[in-house]
């Protein structure tokens, strides 16, 4: 069932508190990539906290429409280490709205200078069930995973370790990112694999000499593709889902970044269409602000 008015009302005081807190901070102007699944090698700036909300809307052909969301708190611990905590949830039409779990990820940049290809090591622990956010596709993930009712799906709790090798390059304004994903359910299940690749570029590279909200350099456009690569026993691109779609974002003057991507399933295992949107808000030097009592 779609969240009722009463349920939204319960959250209203918390949403107000969140906006008041956000307004209390001076934000920075993040220059984020418009990717939803692919990670680039660019780390969070040290001391900054980025709050991100990413959502995906989709409908498997024989199932119910769903809206899945992740709220992420990304903190730049150092220039070479970014840590991030996620809270995930989803609402399925004609079913229910549930909290699906949490994830904790860490990204480490082993090479401290910029190279043609910059590797980043990603380590994540996740404790989720009935997840529909599709933050990655691994193994033989497909649209059938979206057909169980939430009551059934949430009984299958997945405690997983996920490793990614992220490789990124910045060249003449273009960013090219490639991720190789390996995920292991801590229950006795085989390693599952996946991939994500993306490329993007700002619409204009040089900054304007005057303040503007809709200058071309405030927009970034690109394309993203991701999918599964089977598991330890059957590695390959068959019997799993793949998605491809354009992505665009806009860095608003108040420090917020808005992102959107329509994505298209590339085979019969995929959900035909996904609509992803995101809001990111960066708070600069958050720990120093608390120390100074700002």
């Amino acid at each position, binding site marked *: 069932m779609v969240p009722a008015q009463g349920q939204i009302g319960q959250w209203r005081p918390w949403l107000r508190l969140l906006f008041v807190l956000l307004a209390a901070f001076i934000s920075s102007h993040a220059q984020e990539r418009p990717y939803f699944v692919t990670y680039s090698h660019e780390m969070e700036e040290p001391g900054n906290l980025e709050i991100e909300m990413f959502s995906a809307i989709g409908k498997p052909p024989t199932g119910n429409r769903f809206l899945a969301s992740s709220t992420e708190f990304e903190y730049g611990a150092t*220039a*070479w280490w970014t840590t991030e905590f996620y809270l995930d949830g989803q609402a399925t039409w004609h079913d229910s709205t549930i909290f699906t779990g949490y994830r904790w990820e860490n990204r480490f940049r082993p090479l401290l200078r910029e190279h043609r290809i910059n590797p980043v090591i990603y380590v994540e622990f996740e404790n989720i069930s009935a997840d529909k956010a599709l933050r990655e596709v691994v193994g033989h993930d497909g649209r059938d995973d979206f057909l169980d009712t939430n009551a059934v799906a949430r009984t299958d709790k997945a405690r997983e370790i996920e490793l990614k090798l992220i490789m990124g390059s910045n060249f003449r304004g273009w960013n090219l990112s490639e991720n190789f994903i390996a995920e292991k359910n801590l229950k006795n299940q085989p390693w599952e694999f996946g991939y994500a690749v993306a490329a993007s570029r700002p619409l204009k590279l040089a900054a304007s000499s*005057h303040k503007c909200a809709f200058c071309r350099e405030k927009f970034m456009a690109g394309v993203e593709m991701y999918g599964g690569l089977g598991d330890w026993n059957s590695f390959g691109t068959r019997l799993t889902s793949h998605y491809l779609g354009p992505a665009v974002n806009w860095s608003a003057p108040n420090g917020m970044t808005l992102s959107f991507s329509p994505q298209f399933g590339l085979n019969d295992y995929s959900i035909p269409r996904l609509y992803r949107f995101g809001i990111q808000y960066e708070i600069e030097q958050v720990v120093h602000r608390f120390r100074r009592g700002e």
Partner: protein
Amino acid sequence: MRRKRAFLLLWIVLTLAALAFGVADGSWLRHVPAKDHERKNPYEGQADAVAAGRLVYEDHCAKCHGKNAEGTTKRPSLRSARVLQEATEGDLHWLLMNGNMGRGMPSWSKLGDPQIWQVISYVRSLSR
């Protein structure tokens, strides 16, 4: 035997980490390759680039280096002799592209060459 091996592995990891930070620490100027040292700012002398660079600076750099590049308690001033006189614009470009990650300075390669040169134009204008 297993414990010895674990200590050896830990020692190797720590040594590599120390080397990595040793390179990143100290004077970054000594590590700039000659070809980067010689690079010229394509926006040199352009008032528009200084104005654009100031906006980029305010968005991305001011929180750490101060609104007027005077530095903060933890991050250095950009009005120092090293930044305004000793380093060439090519050196500053190399620093912004690569960062000095062991010292908390991230890479700003995501800004792209034009915006990096614009920021350099602005920072250099502070000496005038």
